[in-house]
């Protein structure tokens, strides 16, 4: 069977002082509205509470990220996203809120290694030393917007627009070149 849905750079990976890999297709749903009013529907759909400012709540395969005072990003399996979007839209009908499946508009990269923060610090005006597991920070990576989630010990997940996926992969690969460690944090 042919695979119609493909991620931006299937299988792209680079091994430097950290490992850069394209994470493949990931379900992403943007929910906007008054966060307190969304709490019930989001809890039913994902099992997660509304995350605190700039935090990510995880429950199994699903996660909810705080994106702005009126925006959440739900992360789930790619195949689950359309059904989850539909059920959320039903649950929130009548409320002043929007739900959009943005899975195909995004690309996801993982940067793995003890020095993941050092590699990203070359590209982003962010103090990665102050970020702990479960933190998310929207910023820029060189010239494009990105959201960086500290998804585990020594693991950063970076979300960007799919249209800049190649640019982002090239940036991250260049930043991870062996011998170019800035040694800021590790």
């Amino acid at each position, binding site marked *: 069977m042919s695979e119609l849905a493909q991620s931006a750079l299937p299988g792209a990976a680079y091994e430097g002082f950290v490992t850069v890999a394209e994470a493949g297709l990931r379900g992403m749903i943007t929910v906007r509205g008054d966060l307190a009013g969304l709490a019930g529907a989001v809890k039913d759909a994902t099992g997660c509470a509304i995350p605190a400012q*700039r935090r990510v709540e995880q429950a199994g395969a699903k996660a909810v990220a705080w994106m702005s*005072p009126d*925006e959440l990003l739900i992360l789930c399996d790619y195949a689950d996203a359309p059904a989850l979007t539909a059920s959320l839209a039903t649950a929130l009908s009548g409320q002043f809120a929007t739900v959009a499946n943005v899975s195909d508009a995004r690309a996801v990269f993982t940067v793995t290694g003890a020095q993941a923060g050092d590699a990203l610090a070359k590209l982003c005006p962010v103090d990665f030393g102050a970020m702990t597991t479960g933190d998310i920070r929207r*910023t820029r990576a060189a010239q494009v917007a990105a959201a960086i989630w500290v998804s585990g010990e020594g693991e950063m997940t970076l979300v960007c627009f799919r249209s800049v996926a190649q640019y982002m992969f090239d940036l991250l690969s260049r930043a991870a070149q062996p011998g170019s460690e800035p040694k800021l944090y590790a």
Partner: protein
Amino acid sequence: MLLLTCPCCGVTAEETEFAPGGEAHLKRSGPGSSDAEFDSYMFNRKNPRGVHFERWRHAYGCGKWFLAARCTMTLEVFGTYPAQTLEPPAEIVAAIKAKRPDWEGFA
């Protein structure tokens, strides 16, 4: 370099993460105003050497607008506050007065 703290998401970031939006607290001259008043609202902007109130947008972050009080000469930031204010809040004015005793005040 300008370091601003976004009051909407609490992030302190440098200038490149923000987009400038010009002078803050502009008041539109509404219907019935004279041509001179509307002309002034439309085109005349303050350009002080010192304390200035500006609009900024956290373009690469939460995307929200906010206001900042800063010194155009030293780039010192006195404070940032929500965009939903018609004039500088008391604590911002106090912070400016503490640093610039001879500041003539918001007008």
